[in-house]
């Protein structure tokens, strides 16, 4: 074992909020050794990002305070003057951030943004820096690197921007790279490439990496050692294989239990709720057994055939239609009462637009949508209003989907009153029952959304959707923004409700491990089309379409024993569904693999 490159002792960081000092990180100690990868894991509010910013000295000085000791390469960073700290940053000590879309300066060329570090730390002149920049861009496998130097960030995709961020941080060959959720905002196939890139560069450069993440799959994939944080404190530390095999702290155990693992459900046909473990006591709650079976022989609740939704892209002097986004292209599927169909795919594949098209929140261009026997596309305003009682939607961001100025009781009662289902007094009663049903207390009805936590807000959204007693719920990334343990609770709640009320879910998600847990059937979308659809087990265990296979292979597996062998570095971009105005989609042929498993032929 080599000596510690970074050594943190008793780190406490506080922020001043409304004149009060509040500790966000409390007495945290750990080491990062030269050349190793340390993962710092935790959910939102665990203080993992604040720890990173404390190391970098990037917290606002006016209202933050850091005590303890941070020794880097023999020097105490906390007592270093700002100017010396600046000379370390981006030079010996580098950092990449979560949001590649906002972390690059929009008005400076990417060439200059990378060269800047070289100019300030190496004293290179502009031309020497440009030459070096090109070399670095090639090292992060930026395609056509030379032509990218003078580009502005808005011309690059998220994955490419993250490559630029990495190039920027590696420009001066730092000893330690702090990566704060660098792949969280990226699609899963791009994430796999970026992780592979970071691993390769780490070997090539012999640098240490502190990798901050909430994703146990990524931890298993990349880390030598793990530090687990909870509410500002370190709860466990250990070598990755040992920690996964034999977690000590109740929180670590709860976290690992709540992580959906791709392949967990092999050999089981029905969806299954999670076992929940209490974070503090470690007590286990076994979920109730599911009772209901789907009546697959009966008429489907929802039948979609040949659905297409396109958006015009206008440009030029006269705003002519120059291109179209083929967001949804000729898709067909059916959904039965009590069934969950998952729509999976990466960003821009049209899965959200599909959900919105079914409720006609966006107007589809062609195709038919039959819901409970009615043609949804033929409904007039009033008919659509009535149909929307029976199909509801839950969104990704539970805070944004509640009106901040309405009490939650009012928000849940409003649809009941608007649709004339009950008077005010009875509506209030029903609100109480609904709140109870989703695991909240009826006396919370008078509160405002900001007084609830993220998981509670999503429960509220579910209660509001249930207010109209719908048969179909379109859940658009409904659990994606939630922390792992909360996510498991909400998924369990959704399954319970399905069991009890016979709800059908159209579960839109990019998270294949969650999808495996919750769905009966899966449809994989790529560039607006469904490329493969079938029973969950068939799709996950025997993917037939090349894209489905690529997708499955990219999902990080939260098991260090099953770490994938190093792969060749690749660089891809998710292709765009924007087509020229005269584009005619090709006719597709389907192959029947039996048991309702269909795959698109290439």
């Amino acid at each position, binding site marked *: 074992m080599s000596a510690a490159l970074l050594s943190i002792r008793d780190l406490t960081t506080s922020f001043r909020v409304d004149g009060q000092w509040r500790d966000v990180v409390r007495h945290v100690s750990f080491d990062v050794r030269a050349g190793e990868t340390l993962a710092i894991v935790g959910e939102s509010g665990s203080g993992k990002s604040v720890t990173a910013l404390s190391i*970098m000295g*990037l917290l606002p000085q006016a209202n933050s305070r850091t005590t303890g000791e941070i020794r880097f390469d023999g020097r105490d960073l906390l007592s270093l003057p700002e100017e010396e700290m*600046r*000379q*370390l*940053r*981006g*030079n010996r000590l*580098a*950092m990449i*951030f979560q*949001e590649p879309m*906002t*972390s*690059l*300066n*929009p*008005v*400076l060329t990417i060439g200059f943004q990378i060269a*800047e*570090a070289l100019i*300030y*730390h190496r004293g290179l002149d502009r031309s020497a820096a440009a030459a070096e920049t090109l070399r670095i861009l090639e090292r992060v496998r930026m395609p056509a690197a030379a032509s990218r130097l003078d580009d*502005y960030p*808005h011309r690059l995709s998220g994955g490419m921007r993250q490559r630029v*961020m990495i190039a*920027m*941080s590696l420009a001066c060959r730092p000893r330690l790279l702090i990566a704060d959720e660098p792949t969280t905002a990226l699609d899963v196939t791009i994430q796999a490439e970026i992780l592979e890139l970071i691993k390769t560069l780490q070997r090539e450069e012999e640098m240490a990496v502190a990798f901050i993440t909430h994703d146990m799959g990524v931890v298993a994939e990349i880390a030598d050692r793990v530090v687990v944080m909870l509410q500002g404190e370190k709860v466990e530390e250990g070598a990755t294989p040992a920690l996964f095999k034999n977690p000590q702290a109740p929180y670590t155990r709860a976290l690992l239990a709540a992580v959906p693992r791709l392949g967990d459900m092999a050999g089981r046909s029905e969806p299954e709720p999670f076992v929940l473990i209490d974070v503090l006591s470690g007590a286990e709650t076994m979920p109730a057994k599911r009772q209901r079976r789907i009546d697959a022989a009966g008429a489907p609740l929802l039948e979609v055939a040949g659905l297409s939704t396109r958006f015009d892209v206008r*440009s*030029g*002097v006269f705003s002519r239609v120059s291109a179209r986004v083929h967001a949804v292209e000729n898709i067909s599927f059916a959904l039965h009462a009590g069934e969950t169909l998952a729509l999976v795919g990466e960003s821009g594949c049209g899965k959200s637009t599909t959900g919105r098209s079914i409720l006609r929140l966006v107007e589809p261009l062609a195709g038919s949508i039959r819901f409970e026997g009615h043609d949804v596309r033929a409904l007039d305003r009033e008919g659509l209003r009535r149909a929307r009682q029976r199909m509801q939607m839950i969104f990704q961001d539970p805070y944004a989907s509640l009106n901040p100025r309405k009490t939650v009781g009012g928000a849940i009662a409003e649809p009941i009153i608007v649709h004339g289902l009950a008077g005010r007094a009875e509506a209030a009663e029903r609100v109480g029952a609904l709140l109870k049903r989703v695991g909240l207390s009826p006396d919370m009805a008078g509160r405002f959304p900001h007084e609830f936590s993220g998981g509670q807000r999503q429960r509220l959204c579910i209660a509001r959707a249930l207010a109209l007693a719908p048969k179909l719920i379109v859940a658009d990334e409904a659990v994606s923004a939630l922390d792992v343990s909360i996510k498991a609770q909400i998924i369990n709640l959704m399954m319970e409700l399905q069991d009890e009320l016979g709800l059908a879910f159209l579960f839109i998600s990019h998270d294949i491990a969650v999808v495996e847990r919750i769905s009966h059937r899966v449809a994989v979308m790529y560039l607006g089309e469904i490329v493969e659809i079938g029973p969950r087990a068939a799709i996950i265990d025997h993917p037939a379409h090349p894209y489905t296979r690529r997708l499955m292979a990219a999902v990080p597996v939260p098991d260090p024993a099953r770490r994938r062998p190093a792969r060749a570095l690749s660089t891809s971009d998710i292709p765009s569904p924007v087509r020229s105005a005269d584009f005619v989609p090709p006719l597709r042929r389907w192959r029947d693999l039996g048991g309702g498993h269909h795959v698109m032929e290439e």
Partner: protein
Amino acid sequence: MTAFLVRRCGFALVTLFAVLTLVFVLVRIVPGDPAQLILGDQASRETIEALRQRLGLDKSLFEQYSVFIAGALRGDWGTSLVTGRPVIGEVLNVLPWTIELTLLSLAIGIVIGVPLGVAAAVRRNRFVDYAARIASLLGLSFPPFVSALLLLLGFAIALRWFPVISGKNATFYEWYQSITLPALNLGLITAAYITRVTRSAMLEVLQEDYVRTARAKGVPWRAVIWRHGLRNALIPVITIVGLYLGILIGNSVLTEIVFSRPGLGKLIVGALNQRDYTMLQGMMVIYTLVVVIVNLLTDLAYGIADPRVKLR
């Protein structure tokens, strides 16, 4: 970028036509007969009829409109009802005075406003910030003619550093004597405006992720502020300064009146008082042209400052 500029030029033309039409309508919705209004109650029927013919009021509305638009575009804006000279000549005579005043005050405003706004944002809730905020709010609260009167009372009447009435420009000294107080008056108000806009744009930019990235790279704070921060903050500042020019033109009218300085301001007030309709029409046309040109320049500056514009 080209498509963007062509579109903006098209928009400028549409604006021009829209405002010309508005001017046409405005002049004609006056209750009563303009000729009667101009000549007063004692005028005889014949003189009124003659004036109606001279103004083209006897023709159909459509004919009047086409004559007006064609004339406006050709630069034939009729003759002043008061002096009898061509309107365009009168306007062009005083236009340089107004342009000189507004450009100089804009320059003063930028030179003071941008650095002050940046300083206030960077040192938020410190002394510089409070001082800049109060000073700029005060500057914005002054009606321009009140501040002009104060300058006049202080520097021209009490201290006698400048003449009370000046309109000569022959030597540099005369020019300096005549322009300092008006330019200072408009310039300080402009500076107040730009300070506020720059401060709030800068405050927003300083919270952006890319500013943190720049710091994480080890870029010195000074360069973070000016290169990473201000470059981005300038984008909203340009937009708002473009909109402000309309206010600046209005303020220049009041300033010119107080300092008895030749310019569009004195011309338009004279035309208003003497009910010189053709002159008013002509002045509206020149104001529209100025606004349209300023808007185009703003768009151009915007396109240069923000590389993302090329996408549109």
